[in-house]
C-alpha cells in the first residue's frame, strides 16, 4: 500500500495537467496562428503582422476602434475595481464589527455570488432602463413625466451601467475575502490601539487596513482581470460605441468576412496579455493561494 501511495505524484496530476495544458495551450497556439493570418480554411498560409500593425496604428475597420475600446475597457475596469474595493472594505469592517450573526452574512455574500453575471445584468436592465422600475418610481414622485426624461443609466455611452453592474456584483466578492481575513485577525491589536486612544477611523487606518491590504489588493487585481476580459455584461448593458475590447474582439471574430478573424483574434490576444500581466502582479503581491 505504501508503495502505491508513493507512486510519482505526476501520475496523479497527469489528467488535470493534460487537460489544462492541451486545451489552453492549443487555444493560445491556434489564436496566435490565426492572428498572424494563418488560416488553412481560406487557403492562407503566409505569416503576417498585418492585424497587429493595423490595430496599433489605428487603421482598418478594427483598428479605428482599437484605442478607444482599450481606453473604454480600462476606464470601466479600473473604476469598477477601485470603487468596489473601497466599498468592500467598508462593508466587511461593518459586518465584522458585530459579534455573532456571521453565518447569515456569509450566506448572503455567497448567495449574491451565485447569481450569474448575465442574470444580474438583466436585472439592472429591467430596473434602470428609461421605462424601468426606477423611472416609474421617479414618475410617481413627480420628478419626471416621460421615460425620455429619465437619465440614461444603462446602455449609456459612458459605461455607467457597466460600472454599476460590476460594483454591485464585485463588492460582495471582495467583502467576503476581507471578512475572512478580519475574522482570522486577533482582536487584541484593535483593543490595544483603542486603549492608547485611537479613534475608530485611526484604528481602521493604522490597524485594520495594513492587515487586510495584501488580500484586498490581490482580490482587486483578480476583479480587474475579470472585468477587463468579460463579454456578456458589456454585450447586454453596453452600447454600439464605445465598445469594450472583448466585444470588439468577438464582433470581428464572428464577421462573415473570414479575413476579419485575424483582427478579432489579435484584439483577444492583446487583451489576454494585459490580463495575464495583471494576474502575475496579483500573484506576486498576494502570494499564490
Amino acid at each position, binding site marked *: *500500500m505504501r508503495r502505491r501511495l508513493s507512486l510519482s*505524484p505526476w501520475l*496523479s*496530476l497527469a*489528467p*488535470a*495537467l493534460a487537460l*489544462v*495544458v492541451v*486545451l*489552453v495551450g492549443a*487555444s493560445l*497556439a491556434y489564436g496566435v496562428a*490565426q492572428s498572424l493570418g494563418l488560416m488553412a480554411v481560406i487557403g492562407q498560409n503566409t505569416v503576417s503582422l498585418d492585424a497587429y500593425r493595423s490595430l496599433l496604428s489605428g487603421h482598418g475597420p478594427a483598428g479605428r476602434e482599437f484605442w478607444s475600446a482599450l481606453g473604454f475597457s480600462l476606464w470601466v475596469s479600473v473604476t469598477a475595481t477601485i470603487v468596489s474595493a473601497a466599498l468592500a472594505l*467598508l*462593508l466587511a*469592517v*461593518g*459586518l465584522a464589527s458585530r459579534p455573532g450573526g456571521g453565518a447569515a*452574512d*456569509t*450566506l448572503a*455574500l*455567497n*448567495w*449574491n*455570488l*451565485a*447569481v*450569474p*453575471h*448575465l442574470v*444580474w*445584468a*438583466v436585472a439592472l436592465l*429591467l430596473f434602470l432602463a428609461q421605462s424601468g422600475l426606477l*423611472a*416609474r*418610481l421617479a*414618475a410617481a414622485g413627480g420628478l419626471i413625466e416621460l421615460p425620455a426624461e429619465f437619465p440614461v443609466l444603462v446602455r449609456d455611452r459612458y459605461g455607467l451601467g457597466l460600472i454599476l453592474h460590476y460594483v454591485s456584483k464585485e463588492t*460582495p*466578492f471582495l467583502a*467576503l475575502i476581507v*471578512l*475572512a481575513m478580519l475574522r482570522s485577525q486577533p482582536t487584541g491589536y484593535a483593543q490595544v490601539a483603542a486603549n492608547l486612544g485611537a479613534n475608530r477611523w485611526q484604528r481602521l487606518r493604522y490597524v485594520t487596513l495594513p492587515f487586510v491590504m495584501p488580500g484586498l489588493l490581490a482580490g482587486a487585481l*483578480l476583479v480587474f*482581470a475579470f472585468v477587463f*476580459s*468579460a*463579454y456578456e455584461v458589456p454585450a447586454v448593458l453596453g452600447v454600439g460605441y464605445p465598445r469594450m475590447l*472583448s466585444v470588439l*474582439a*468577438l464582433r470581428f*471574430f464572428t464577421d462573415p468576412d473570414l479575413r476579419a478573424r485575424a483582427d478579432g*483574434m489579435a484584439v*483577444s490576444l492583446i*487583451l*489576454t496579455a494585459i*490580463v495575464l500581466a495583471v494576474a502575475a502582479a496579483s500573484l506576486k503581491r498576494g502570494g499564490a*493561494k
Partner: protein
Amino acid sequence: MTRLSQIGRWALYLLLAAPLALFAVYAFSTRWFFPQLLPAEWTSATLARVLGDGRVISALRDSVAMAGGVSLLAMVIGYPAARVLGLRQFRGRNAAWLVLFLPTVVPPLAVGMGLNILFLQLGLAGTLAGVMLAHLVPALPYVVFTLAGAFARYDENYEFQALVLGASPARTFWSVSLRLLAPSLVVAGLFAFLISWSQYLLTLLIGSGRIITLPVLLFSAAAGGNPATTAALALIFLAPPLVIIAATARQLNQRPGDIREQL
C-alpha cells in the same frame, strides 16, 4: 461602527432580495405601461408559456446535463491532482499549481475563440461533449484548489488504519476517504456546477449555435425580447443555483471566500 454596520447589512440583504422580487413582478406582469408603478393586471400566462416552450425545456435539460456532467468530470479528474498537491511535497509542485491556476485568469473569450476552429476540425464543435470539454477548463481549477485545501488538513492515517484492519482499497476509498472529505466535495462540486451553469461564451463559441443552454436563451431574450419573457427566463435560470447555495450553506460557511470569479 454600528450605524455603518446596519447600513451595510441592509444594503446587502436588499441587493440579495431585489433581483428576485424584480423578476417576479416582471414575469407576472401584463400590459404594464409606463408610469404605472405596479402592473394593473397580473398573469401567470407568461411563465406558463415559457415553461411550456419546447426550446426552454430542452435548454433546461441540456443545462442540467452539462453542468452535472462537468461537475462530475471535474471531480474525477481533480481528485487525484488535489490529493498530491495537498498531501505531498515534491519537485515541481509550484509549477503544477501555476499551470492549474492558469485557466482562472486566461479569459474564456481567448479559450473559446482559439478552440473554435480546432474543435470544428475534430468534429467536437456543436456537440455536448465538445462544450463540456471546454467548460472543464474554467471549472477544473476551482475543484482542484478546493479539494487541495481539504487534503492539506486531511489525516492519511485513517486510511492506513482501515487497510490494516483488512478493508480493501476500494472500501477504504468509499467508506473513509470520501466520507471524511464529503463537505469539501460538496463545495467543489457546487463550484464546478455553477461555473458551467453560468457559462455563456464558451457554449456560444464551441456549441456553434447547436447547443442551446439557458444562458444562451436568456442572452438573446435580453438583447431584444419582451421584459416579461426575459424575467420569466431569468427566474428559471436563477432558481437552481439559489437552491443549491441554500442547501449547502453549512459547508460554504466553513470556507468563506472560496467562490471566485467566472460565476
